[in-house]
């Protein structure tokens, strides 16, 4: 069993090596696999004779040390090479008939007609269905409008026209998937189903890659699922037709889908919405229908794992089935295969995610070993079954290795298996008499402090201080418990199951949830330890009652549905309580951001954790190895060999360290990053270990897209930033200020600089006051005000957003007590290692002109100067004369000629413009919508004629400019092909 575990680790390690090194030589890896395998077999044959001889396997079984050490080393190397080969071979999809290869050979604007089969049950995601299609054939389709009859004889027009379709030869596709997003306004929305053959006609899109620092790479995520293109099925973009409904396919899978649909029907009849969506999520893995607010509350309280159908659910179901069979006195040897069948059917029902497959495999192996095999001990059995599950999943789909869901699922089980017992020992030693009282009071004090003073989590040293506090509380509790003779008031007095549950919670927290949540998501739920104490037992109850109700309702005719209603009526109470609990903790306990640790920091954390938990075992191992090496060293005949081996090890370690250190990116003296925030702008300045922001993007409340939360926060959390030194707002336009609110909730901001008036008393202004403070160039409105008429209400969404964002800024500045400094031309200050000089606006008028009084800044560090232009280029004609080495523009510059003259005279190394076409609803009824959209169309070709590179965030993603050793290096996140 140990041999198998080691070989599994080598296989997974090999895949890890392929990920880290990026090696693509699959042929070489396959050759090395064969060579190492041969090397492993030779010592084995020397010891036991020929593999093909009759006594080979018997001698192997009877020998206690069946595999020689040398063979074992080569077997492990074989598995490392095979793991790397398997991963690389999955990435190699450049053969001619692969879906990706075909798409890449053609233009993005190509109109395709694709025929393929739906290979999975469609999933509801918000307002669309996600449909996974295996393309079988595809052909290019062109439609032209051709004049077929020219009765008038005119050259220019007249006559009869027809649409003529021209299609290319049919191409056969093998490999690669297409993801179709079928929206509600489409006919097939309610008809599309698993196993149908469909025909799609339209343009395909490639998923967005990582456009900003700290952002998710959606293209990589889809590639790991085998998906290479997406298509939106909306009336304007693409059409989907159902061609054929096949009844073929795996019977088992169809059976699982049938059960799933029947249980879903029962849920829809016996539980009202939104509670039904929760039950559908936890029981059937249908996450799509849950209201966004509930999903957010689950994330904040750290209980969203209940929706990712995982080991917990599978174990609950295994326990339920075990209980039912045991109730009828059926022997384990008979019902074990039935449980295994049910668990795998359940994994199919919930969509075969890696977490459920892993859990089904592990539970099955555990039950089968209990029924038929000898007992190897709990920890060893769990590790063995975990290795089998990982090997299976990674062999079938190696790209899962880098998916957070796979890593989280595996590490949760690893944490439970390895850290539960040591955690229980620590708790037993720590929580007795006065130690227990002290630990309880200290924990309560922590939560009371965080609840009463929520801003505490924004303090730069909150997490380091919390870590020190936890160590201190543990140490004092242990000392108090050690000195105490008190026995009746202790952790040991709790029932065994409760001790185990609490220890498991601690194990999961320290070995999975805290480090991996910080690493992957840059957030840490403080409510998670408390909320999970309630959530986990409760979810057990909900899943069990829901499953019984679902099966009774689906398969007992007549009375079944009424019994299900009765059961789910009680379950409804539990679900209500669960949702209420999540809502309560989300409102009570803050959900702070944390700096995302790097991969090497994560490895160091896990090494230290193992040293802390297993120091005595590690010490024993180290002493044993030291003893063995000393013994060999004392033998003169082995000394030379050992020396050579030691030199080899030293060379490997030094080479590895050099390679690692050289791969670390050298920190630049200054980094300026124009983030891709869509419509709006945000420039991040990093220097001397500090960070400042110029503008903070748009929070489009109607579109549900807060760029402050989605772009700025992840960018900051990957930077090891604890606070923002300053935020400079170039104007009060909503696309510059509204994203700041969510940034305030996660980071402490030390100062705000604005050229416009901003009160710090927290008193909102009404719309009348607002339009007198800010001018948007709306002549009609200004005329009305001059005539003494009332401003009325915001005339459109953009106005409303601008007005609300400004008031929100006033409230936030007051709430977080942030000093505000008013700036104007001539002011000079230093932030994040950069000297910032204000060049425009010269003076403050009664009314701040949003499009004319925006800031123009000169940023200087060392020999380099940078310009930040708010959008208004008029001052560049006369007032601004300095030569910028790089120019950042927050919007399409206007007038273009002034901008062009300035940049041509400066001749910078590049220009970065933050621009994206605004959404239709944002510009609805806005008086400048025409000007904004026409500028973007007319400017694009002119930018290309400039003698230096012009980068646009809409095309290049984030644009990063590094000042390093006196030179400037530009990096764009999306490279043009």
């Amino acid at each position, binding site marked *: 069993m140990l041999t198998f575990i080691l070989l599994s680790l080598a296989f997974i390690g090999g895949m890890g090596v392929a990920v880290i090194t990026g090696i693509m030589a699959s042929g070489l890896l396959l050759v090395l696999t064969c060579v190492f395998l041969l090397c492993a077999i030779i010592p084995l044959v020397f010891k036991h004779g020929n593999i093909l001889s009759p006594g080979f396997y018997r001698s192997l079984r009877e020998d206690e040390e069946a595999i020689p050490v040398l063979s074992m080393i080569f077997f492990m190397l074989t598995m490392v090479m095979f793991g790397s080969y398997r991963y690389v071979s999955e990435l190699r999809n450049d053969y001619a008939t692969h879906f990706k290869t075909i798409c890449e050979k053609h233009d993005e604007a190509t109109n395709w007609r694709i025929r393929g089969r739906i290979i999975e049950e*469609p999933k*509801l995601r918000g307002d669309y*269905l996600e449909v996974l299609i295996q393309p079988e054939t595809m052909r290019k389709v062109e439609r032209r409008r051709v004049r077929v009859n020219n009765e008038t004889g005119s050259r220019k027009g007249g006559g009869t026209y027809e649409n003529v379709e021209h299609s290319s030869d049919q191409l056969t596709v093998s490999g690669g998937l297409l993801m179709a997003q079928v929206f509600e306004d489409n006919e097939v*929305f*309610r*008809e*599309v*189903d698993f196993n149908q053959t469909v025909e799609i006609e339209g343009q395909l899109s490639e998923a967005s890659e990582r456009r900003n620092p700290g952002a998710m790479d959606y293209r990589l995520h889809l590639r790991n699922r085998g998906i290479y293109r997406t298509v939106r099925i909306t009336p304007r973009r693409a059409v989907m037709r159902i061609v054929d409904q096949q009844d073929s396919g795996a019977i088992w899978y169809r059976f699982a889908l049938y059960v799933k*649909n029947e249980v*879903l*029907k029962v849920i*829809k*009849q*016996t*539980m*009202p*919405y939104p509670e*039904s*969506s929760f039950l*559908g999520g936890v029981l059937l893995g*249908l996450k*799509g*229908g849950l209201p966004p607010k509930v999903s957010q509350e689950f994330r904040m309280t750290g209980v969203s794992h209940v929706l990712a159908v995982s080991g917990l659910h599978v174990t609950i179901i295994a*326990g*339920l089935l*075990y*209980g*039912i069979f*045991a*109730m009828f*006195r059926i022997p384990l040897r008979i019902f074990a295969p039935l449980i295994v069948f049910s668990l795998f059917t359940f994994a199919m029902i919930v969509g075969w995610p890696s977490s459920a497959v892993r859990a089904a495999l592990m539970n099955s192996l555990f039950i089968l070993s209990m029924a038929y095999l000898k007992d190897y001990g709990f920890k060893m059995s769990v590790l063995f079954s975990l290795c089998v599950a990982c090997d299976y999943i990674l062999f079938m789909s190696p790209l899962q290795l880098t998916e957070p869901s796979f890593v989280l699922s595996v590490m949760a089980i690893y944490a439970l298996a390895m850290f539960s017992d040591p955690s229980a020992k620590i708790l037993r030693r720590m929580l007795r008499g006065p130690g227990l009282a002290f630990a309880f009071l200290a924990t309560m004090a922590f939560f009371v402090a965080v609840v009463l003073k929520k801003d505490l989590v924004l303090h730069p040293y909150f997490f380091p201080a919390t870590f020190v506090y936890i160590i201190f509380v543990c140490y004092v509790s242990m000392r108090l418990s050690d000195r105490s003779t008190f026995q009746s008031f202790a952790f040991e007095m709790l029932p065994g199951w409760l001790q185990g549950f609490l220890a498991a919670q601690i194990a999961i927290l320290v070995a999975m949830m805290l480090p991996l949540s910080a690493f992957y998501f840059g957030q840490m739920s403080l409510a998670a330890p408390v909320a999970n104490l309630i959530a986990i037992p409760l979810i057990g*109850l909900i899943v*069990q*009652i829901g499953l*019984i109700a679902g099966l009774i309702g689906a398969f007992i005719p007549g009375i079944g*549905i009424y019994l299900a*209603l*009765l*059961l*789910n*009526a*009680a*379950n*409804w*109470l539990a679900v209500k309580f669960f949702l209420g609990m999540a809502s309560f903790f989300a409102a009570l306990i803050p959900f702070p951001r944390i700096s995302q640790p790097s991969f090497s920091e994560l490895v160091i954390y896990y090494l230290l954790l193992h040293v802390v938990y297993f120091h005595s075992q590690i010490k024993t191992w180290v002493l044993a190895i030291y003893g063995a090496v000393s013994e060999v060293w004392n033998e003169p005949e082995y000394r030379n060999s050992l020396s050579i081996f030691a030199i080899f090890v030293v060379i490997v370690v030094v080479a590895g360290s050099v390679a690692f250190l050289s791969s670390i990116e050298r920190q630049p003296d200054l980094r300026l990053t124009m983030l891709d925030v869509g419509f709006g702008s945000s420039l991040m300045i990093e220097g001397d270990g500090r960070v400042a922001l110029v503008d903070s993007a748009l929070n489009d409340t109607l579109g549900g897209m807060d760029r402050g939360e989605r772009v700025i926060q992840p960018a900051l959390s990957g930077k090891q930033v604890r606070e923002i030194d300053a935020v400079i707002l170039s104007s009060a336009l909503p696309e510059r200020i509204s994203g700041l609110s969510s940034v305030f909730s996660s980071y402490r901001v030390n100062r705000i600089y604005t050229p416009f008036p901003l009160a710090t008393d927290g008193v909102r202004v009404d719309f009348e006051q607002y339009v007198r403070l800010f001018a948007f160039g709306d002549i009609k409105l200004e005329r009305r005000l001059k005539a003494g008429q009332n401003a009325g209400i915001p005339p459109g969404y953009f106005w409303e957003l601008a007005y609300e964002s400004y008031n929100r800024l006033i409230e936030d500045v007051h709430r977080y007590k942030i000093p505000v400094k008013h700036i104007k031309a001539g002011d000079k200050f230093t932030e994040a290692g950069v000297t910032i000089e204000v060049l425009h606006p010269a003076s403050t008028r009664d009314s701040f002109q949003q499009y004319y009084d925006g800031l123009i800044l000169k940023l200087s560090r060392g020999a380099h100067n940078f310009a930040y232009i708010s959008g208004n280029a008029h001052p560049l004609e006369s007032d601004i004369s300095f030569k910028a080495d790089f120019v950042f523009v927050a919007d399409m510059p206007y007038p273009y000629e002034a901008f062009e003259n300035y940049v041509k005279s400066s001749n910078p190394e590049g220009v970065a413009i933050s621009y994206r076409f605004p959404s239709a609803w944002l510009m609805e009824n806005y008086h400048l919508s025409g000007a904004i959209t026409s500028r973007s169309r007319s400017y694009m070709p002119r930018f290309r004629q400039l003698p230096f590179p012009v980068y646009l965030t809409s095309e290049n993603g984030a644009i990063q400019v590094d000042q390093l050793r006196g030179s400037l290096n530009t990096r764009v996140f999306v490279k043009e092909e």
Partner: protein
Amino acid sequence: MQESNDATRFLIVLLVVTLMTGALVLVVKSDFRIRDNVLSNLDYYPHIKIDKGQD
């Protein structure tokens, strides 16, 4: 044997308590009926259609 007895007892108690609580909810909450539930779930997985004739 002890484990299976515990499991059996737990299941029976769970079922009895659930049925009693469920009955109480149905009595107290007059809109907790199949027809009302179906109506409130119209937009939740709309392609899964409920057969007519229930309730």
